[in-house]
């Protein structure tokens, strides 16, 4: 038989003014199972908590109801007090008669009636509470970082410097990400590679970082503290242990006309290649789609070209190398897969994007995107840092930048702002004016969003001191006449259409998450928005956590981010990971689902609705060891306690602890006439 104690708090005047607290305590005395019901001015005070503890000891309470403020306020306080008196803390619940009653009603009579109702529902709930124990799970104190751009590099270094091992997985042949492609960085105009490459080398040399470049995450199993990750190490066709990075192989490769990904198609590379001189690891990779030997093999012809293998003094070229799968145990995962630009070319239909035919991207050679401009401006780029237009290699004297291409455009692109374009366009105009002294840069913009330290000053400098012409308005159409690009726009400040000529046009295209982010997110059971950006657990208060415990997010895979943002997020994930790794075991609230094995029919509706992949299949065997039934099992380490499974279960064979059907039923009964 339940022995419930009810403690009604006046909260000074806060509750007492509109609720007859003594009356509530008296009314609750008549509820079956209530053996103790009192009111007090401040239940959360030390004497108030002592009242609870004393009553538990003296009256042998089996449950505690504190009618006071919101459980979000003081549930922890009173559960601690309850535990202090030797009663299981989960036998204590709060009835919210302040936020949900005294503060929102003026009529004392009505408020008192409601307070009694509220308290009675919780009394009925607590009668059906059972003791629960905090869940303790062991933690593997190693982290996986997915993505080797600046965010991934920063996260890996911070975690490794914090004393924990890190596996860094990078899809491409080298780490460095988009930042390695940039010329200078806003708002300081320091050289991107100069600040990045030391960090890349640090990653490579760090004793606690294991770098898997040219690798991808194949599958992820497990849960917070206990992930098992399979990584596909794609075949480079080069033996990493033998290669000394001399580069002789790339010199002799006959196929030299392959558009370089690193140079955004503006430069060329060979079929066996190192993407850029500072690549880490400094290993060549054979592009099997472009290598003559592999192209011949695909057609069933014998191997002819082996020039790279012949040139290699170390015998490191291995045309028969296969992909390898390696498995790693980790306790936490940082997702830092970065971004791609809205490509205005032919691959749009796949993504349901309509593209921008009106700008002639892909047909007019001198219409390029922001990253291509970075490569033109970069000293390591295809033009050695000279601004030369792709069509005829001439220096453009009139250059036009279009902002918000694909951004803030729900019709053809993304409704969001890509955040970095205002700044990098301002930077581009400066780089251009520094390099082409008699040139004129013009920018079409909608707003200038320069929110960041030194950002507004930077963009004003581009206009006020460096002479960039800013025209507010979007461009309607561009076409080519001779070697001139005609631009039709509108100057909304002057209220007039504008027709102007340009020698080159740079489109500041929208930032989008990397292709394949959805597949990765599904492997990780983390949610992503309609654009594919990974959802954070809370936009304000948990910005680098995902809703899946133990998985964190950094950089532009979460939303458009610039370098300072990405680095700050990465360091934040590192602090979260190191916090998680501070103890060998981690503790979780026991609000998790639990399957009634006798009743479960094994329909796995629960599995379908579980957003966390917490439901597993469990074999029920007879004495001979034959599987007689397969039923659901909820892994308490993974379950987050939403209870969707229970509402979905047709036979109610899964129960959410702390919110069982019995408890809810009790509450509904209590409200009955």
């Amino acid at each position, binding site marked *: 038989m339940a022995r419930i104690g009810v403690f009604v708090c006046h909260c000074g005047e806060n509750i007492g003014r509109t609720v007859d607290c003594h009356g509530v305590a008296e009314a609750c005395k008549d509820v079956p199972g209530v053996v103790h019901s009192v009111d007090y001015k401040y239940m959360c005070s030390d004497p108030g908590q002592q009242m609870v503890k004393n009553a538990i000891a003296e009256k042998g309470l089996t449950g505690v109801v504190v009618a006071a403020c919101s459980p979000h306020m003081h549930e922890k306080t009173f559960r601690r007090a309850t535990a202090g008196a030797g009663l299981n803390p989960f036998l204590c619940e709060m009835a919210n008669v302040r936020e949900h009653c005294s503060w929102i009603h003026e009529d004392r009579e009505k408020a008192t009636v409601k307070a009694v109702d509220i308290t009675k529902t919780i009394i009925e709930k607590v009668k059906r509470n059972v003791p629960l124990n905090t869940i303790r799970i062991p933690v593997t104190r190693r982290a996986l970082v997915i993505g080797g751009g600046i965010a991934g590099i920063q996260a890996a270094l911070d975690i490794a410097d914090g004393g924990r091992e890190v596996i860094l997985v990078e899809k491409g042949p080298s780490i460095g990400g988009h930042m390695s492609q940039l010329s200078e960085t806003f708002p300081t105009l320091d050289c991107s590679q100069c600040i990045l490459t030391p960090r890349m080398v640090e990653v490579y040399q760090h004793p606690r970082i294991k770098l898997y470049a040219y690798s991808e995450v194949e599958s992820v199993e497990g849960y917070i503290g206990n992930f098992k990750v399979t990584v596909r190490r794609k075949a480079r066709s080069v033996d990493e242990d033998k290669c000394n990075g001399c580069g002789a192989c790339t010199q002799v490769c006959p196929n030299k006309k392959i558009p370089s990904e690193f140079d955004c198609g503006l430069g060329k590379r060979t079929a066996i290649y190192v993407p850029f001189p500072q690549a880490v690891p400094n290993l060549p990779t054979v592009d099997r789609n472009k290598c003559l030997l592999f192209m011949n093999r695909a057609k069933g012809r014998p191997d002819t070209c082996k020039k790279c293998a012949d040139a290699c003094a170390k015998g490191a070229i291995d045309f028969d190398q296969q992909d390898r799968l390696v498995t790693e145990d980790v306790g936490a995962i940082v997702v830092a897969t970065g971004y791609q630009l809205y490509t205005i070319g032919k691959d749009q239909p796949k993504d349901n994007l309509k593209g921008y035919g009106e700008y002639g991207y892909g047909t007019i050679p001198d219409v390029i995107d922001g990253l291509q401009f970075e490569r033109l401006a970069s000293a390591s780029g295809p033009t050695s840092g000279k601004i030369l237009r792709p069509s005829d290699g001439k220096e453009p004297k009139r250059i036009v930048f279009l902002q918000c291409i694909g951004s803030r455009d729900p019709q053809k692109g993304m409704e969001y702002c890509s955040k970095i374009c205002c700044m990098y366009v301002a930077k581009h105009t400066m780089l251009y004016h520094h390099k082409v002294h008699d040139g004129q840069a013009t920018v079409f913009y909608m707003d200038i969003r320069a929110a960041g330290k030194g950002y507004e000053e930077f963009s004003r400098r581009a206009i006020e001191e460096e002479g960039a012409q800013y025209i507010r308005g979007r461009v309607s159409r561009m076409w080519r006449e001779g070697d001139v690009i005609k631009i039709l726009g509108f100057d909304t400040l002057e209220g007039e259409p504008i027709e102007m000529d340009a020698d080159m046009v740079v489109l500041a295209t929208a930032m989008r998450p990397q292709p394949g982010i959805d597949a990765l997110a599904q492997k990780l059971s983390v949610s992503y928005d309609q654009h594919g950006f990974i959802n954070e657990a809370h936009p304000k208060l948990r910005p680098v956590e995902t809703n899946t415990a133990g998985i964190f997010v950094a950089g532009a895979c979460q939303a458009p981010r610039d370098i300072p943002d990405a680095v700050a997020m990465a360091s934040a994930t590192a602090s979260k990971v190191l916090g998680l790794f501070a103890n060998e075991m981690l503790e979780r609230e026991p609000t998790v689902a639990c399957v009634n094995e*006798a009743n479960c029919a094994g329909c796995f509706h629960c599995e379908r609705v579980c957003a966390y992949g917490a439901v597993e299949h469990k074999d029920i065997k007879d004495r001979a060891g034959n599987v007689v039934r397969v039923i659901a099992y909820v892994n308490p380490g993974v379950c987050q306690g939403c209870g969707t499974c229970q509402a*979905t279960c047709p036979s109610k064979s899964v129960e959410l602890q702390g919110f069982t059907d*019995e408890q809810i039923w009790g509450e509904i009964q209590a409200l009955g006439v």
Partner: protein
Amino acid sequence: MTELRELARRLLSEGTVNAVLGWEEGPRGARPAFVTTPEGADTLIFDHRCVHNLASYLSPRRPHLKRLGKVAMVLKPCDARAVAGLIRETQIPRDKVVLIGVRCGGVITDPDSTAPLTEATVADRCRGCPDREGHLADHTVGTAGPGFAGPSKRAQKIEELAAAPAEKRWAFWQSELEKCVRCHACRQVCPMCYCDRCLADKTQPRWIESSPHARGNMAWHVARAMHLAGRCVDCGECERVCPEGIPLGLITRKIAQVVSERYDFRPSDDPAVPAPVGTYRMDDPQEFIL
């Protein structure tokens, strides 16, 4: 029919299966049959009186078949949806059953009827049914009639009810549901109701009062409708077996309409197609939410 019998005989004599589940002629019309010998295959029939959904025999709640070993089942196109549902919901492994599809042009309502299959006698669920054969089947036999296009009487009744004021609908359903004796035949016959222990039998807490009175009846039929939402294969068995003649098909059909209109979903005979309840789209309509 010869084709069906020959196939069944072959499967049994070759030992591919230990039993064939189909229909035979019984004293009161067509009835389900378990055939375990090659000779027995000659008793198998299939015609417009074979209304029973045999898929419910595959449900793990009915272990009879399982004890016989591997079985073959004769399958109407509509029954294929039920089998697909059981596969989808992990109740039977696909490789544990051989499916003999029969081409179908509609059935009548009562297996004991001698009436021919006509526009007047055809079961309401067959009106407008586009499926002449089940895609899930391993073998497909027979020939199909053209099917029936005529207007569905249930759909008309649903429209009529929808047009009436809420009090009229309430009165209609109260008068129907008060007849329910809670025999649970609707549950027993339903191929998609396979829980070992039904919610209606649970006592802690008792969401659904078990004795036959208006309140418990309401709760039961609401629960049943919700559990079948997006899962009901419209085999019509619940309504056929109801001893009180409650038009249960109206409820399941109504829910199927809702699911079809809101989520563009029709019960599929492809086990890989997920049911609409248990999945979602971020842009699902939510006009009813403030």
